[in-house]
């Protein structure tokens, strides 16, 4: 399956502001994508515990399975207003 990754704020400083595509095994979960990302961007390991992760706009709890075509968003603590 192929998933799309978008990252914001401090997470975009690590992986960039442009959306990325990742090809994953058909039974991949969020933790598999995390491993891929951390192998390419080791700096992400320090940041990850602070991140909220959304899958298609819904905050992910635990380690959800991913589906082909979903958008995964890395969302650091927010500072709007």
């Amino acid at each position, binding site marked *: 399956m192929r998933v799309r990754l*978008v990252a*914001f*704020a*401090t997470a*975009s*400083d690590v992986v960039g502001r442009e959306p990325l595509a990742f090809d994953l095994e058909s039974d991949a979960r969020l933790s598999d994508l995390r491993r891929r990302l951390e192998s390419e961007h080791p700096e992400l390991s320090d940041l990850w515990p*602070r991140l*909220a992760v*959304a899958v298609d*706009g819904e*905050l992910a709890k635990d380690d959800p399975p991913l589906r082909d075509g979903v958008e995964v*968003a890395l*969302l*650091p*603590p*927010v*500072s*709007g*207003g």
Partner: protein
Amino acid sequence: MGATTEISARAALVRDAIDVAAVERLVADPSCGAVLLFLGTVRDHQGDRRVVRLEYSAYEPMARERLATIVRELEDHDDGLRVAIVHRLGDVPLGEASVVIAVASPHREAAYEASRTALERLKREVPIWKRETYDDGDEVWREEEPLGAE
């Protein structure tokens, strides 16, 4: 009724200066005896550091949806209350508004409460970030509140 279109107009992200009077018009209604406007403006300091530039970024689809949820839930909570929240993205010059919240209500107490709740929920629930540039050239994405559930 076109209610969906209407609520998206009252939960908006814009890239240019916010037209405060236009935000007021989104909620004003003859049934309301109070219209309350809140402007969050860009400060020239953060603690003891001097801020020279400020940029806002958002996960736009999710931010719009969550702003609309806040508007809808506040309006459902109080009869006759109308709420609009407009947040600016991109560079926002010092002193200009980054967010405008307008609340119209038959009575003022409900308007004050809804205005405060709208901003507090925005700061916790809406994926928007600010990047500050300081006078020493340092730049940082501010991390203030973990993004919570709605």
